[in-house]
């Protein structure tokens, strides 16, 4: 199978390098791309442009009527609102551009830790579901079904209601040593550099306050919990289907060659399973990043929330929307381009259909 695959790959590579009969000048390539049916295509593209121009003109007119002038300069004017959590110093009066950067960093923070935790939980669940205990498998199946068949919005409302029902700091719950749950948020141990050495800083409860460690705001904790749980379900399904996609003959052949179990998994099964897992996992990460915008529903100040507040405060709605579109295009397009590239590479090797 492996040798076959390689032969096929080199065959395809050879074929790709052959000059096409019509020549390979840029002009010929352009002609091939264009295809034919010139009139229809020009009409279609022209019609599309005309439609866009018409809508654009309408928008400009509406803005004019409402007394709004197109102006991206507002980004460099001071913003009058506060933001409840920020990775960089920020206060009311800083520039709108900085406020948006704060929102962007919050989005990035949530997306990063969400992907990390969802992967950890999802991979564990996916592997445990195949681990041979039928009861455990059914339990995980029930978890996956419940999580995937109720709206993420509902789950986020549940999590935020839960954080609001937590006790005040003085009576903070302590489910694990060093972990405090209170109405002011979640407090966790966190690595910190003290006196030049990397140490784990533990949160300590004194009176009305908790010091040390790291504190998560209730909104961030609810978003993180919601996204982690929701995406762990789909990631566990991805992992399961990836492992199950490897044909039984592969295991048997590897065992017949005398490979040990660990090496079978590492050398034979995982490389093949990853071909199924990688694109699905990447699109889960992308979806999770897009779903960080649901933070706006429960009061987490991610980038959409900041931009919406800016739009309300300045009246520059259309320009803020352009900023918003630019943000998400620059996140999504490179990732989907990478997924396409990966699939094309697999297709060229003859692993999946073109």
């Amino acid at each position, binding site marked *: 199978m492996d040798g076959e695959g390689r032969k096929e790959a080199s065959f395809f590579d050879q074929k790709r390098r052959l000059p096409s009969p019509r020549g390979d000048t840029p002009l010929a390539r352009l002609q091939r791309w264009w295809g034919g049916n010139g009139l229809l295509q020009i009409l279609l593209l022209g019609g599309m442009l005309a439609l866009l121009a018409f809508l654009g003109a309408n928008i400009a007119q509406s803005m004019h009527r409402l007394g709004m002038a197109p102006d991206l300069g507002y980004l460099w004017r001071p913003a009058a609102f506060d933001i409840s959590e920020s990775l960089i110093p920020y206060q009311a009066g800083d520039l709108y551009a900085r406020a948006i950067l704060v929102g962007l960093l919050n989005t990035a923070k949530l997306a990063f830790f969400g992907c990390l935790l969802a992967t950890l939980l999802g991979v564990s669940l996916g592997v445990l579901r195949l681990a041979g205990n039928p009861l455990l498998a059914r339990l995980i199946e029930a978890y996956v079904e419940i999580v995937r068949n109720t709206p993420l919005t509902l789950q986020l409302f549940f999590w935020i209601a839960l954080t609001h029902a937590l006790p005040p700091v003085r009576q903070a719950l302590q489910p694990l040593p060093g972990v405090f749950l209170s109405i002011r948020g979640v407090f966790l141990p966190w690595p910190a550099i003290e006196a030049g050495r990397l140490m784990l800083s533990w949160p300590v409860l004194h009176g009305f306050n908790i010091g040390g460690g790291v504190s998560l705001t209730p909104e961030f904790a609810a978003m993180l919990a919601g996204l982690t749980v929701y995406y762990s379900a789909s990631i566990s399904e991805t992992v399961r289907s990836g492992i199950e996609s490897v044909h039984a003959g592969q295991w048997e052949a590897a065992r017949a060659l005398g490979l040990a179990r660990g090496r079978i998994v590492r050398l034979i099964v995982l490389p093949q399973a990853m071909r199924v897992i990688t694109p699905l996992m990447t699109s889960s990460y992308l979806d999770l990043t897009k779903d960080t915008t649901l933070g706006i529903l429960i009061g987490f100040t991610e980038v959409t929330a900041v931009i919406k507040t800016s739009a309300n405060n300045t009246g520059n709605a259309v320009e803020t929307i352009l900023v918003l579109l630019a943000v998400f295009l620059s996140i*999504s397009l490179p990732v989907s381009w990478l997924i396409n590239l990966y699939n094309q590479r697999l297709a060229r090797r003859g692993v999946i259909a073109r």
Partner: protein
Amino acid sequence: MSGAVLHRRLFPRRAGGVPLLNAAISLAVIGGGVWAAIAFFRWGILDATWSGGAEACRAHGGACWAFVRANFKLMVFATYPSEMLWRPELGTVLILALMIASMVPRLWGKTLLAGWVLVPLADCLLLSGFPGPRLMSTNEWGGLPLTLLIWALAYASAFPVALVLALARRSKLGGVKTLATGVIELVRAMPMVVVLYVSSLIVPMALPFAEVNLFLSIEVALSLFIASYLAEVIRAGLQALPAGQDEAARALGLSYWQTTLLVVLPQALRNVIPPLVNLGIGILLSTPLVGFVGMIDFLTAVRLAAAQEQIWPGCYGEAYCFAGAIYFALCFASSRYSRWLERRIRPGAG
């Protein structure tokens, strides 16, 4: 291969260790399950209050199902007037009937297609109060009927757009192909919240002469949003079809459109019905986002009911259980159906 075979391969039983671990895991699962079941049973049944007011609920301490009973109309139909409730009720029944009819392979055909066009439109008429003494504007619609209407209308109107986008993306004409790819990728790059927010602002500005209300803006945006995902599902079906089908039809002298409409699409669409169902589930589960731009959909109505802290303090758990159960019933049944269909279409897979 079956799961059982795989389990043995991933974790082969060595003498002693694994059976013991397995037994321990089983015990832990049973113990945890029983504990959770008892806790839920006590909260939801034993200590629950089924009728009466908030005082009765506080006295019992368990779940306050009296809240659901008292607020049932508010949660399901939002503020729609009581004397006209037969309208949203009939509309909901029609859409549920359409969903069920779509699940019967024997009924797949032109009549069902007509149903998908007519039922959402009929539901719009019903909710609008036409013909009748009192007309209801779209921002007075709400609750579960609105959620189902938004879902059915957006899905049905996305379909033709998606067909065109999918065919265009596979076209041999570079301009058409690039245009379709651009639209699909642009829309798919956006989160739904952003699409809804942008449309609620931009659509009324872009069409100033038409009286565009929020409902229509949202439907337009959702339709385009769903179409770009739907197009990719349809494209996968087109890609999976053996090239021989296309070539044979062309060899018989059929034109591109004849080949596409008579040979390629019927087969390709039939093969992607399970992912179409899954996409439908996904859309239904994301409809609560329309609450963010000001529509009173089912989940928003439930949340408003739960927010009556003065009358019914702390009933969020009961309200969300109620909403969750309804979403779950709709979506779980559909996902089981899609799995069943998958096995029927491709025996041996999944």
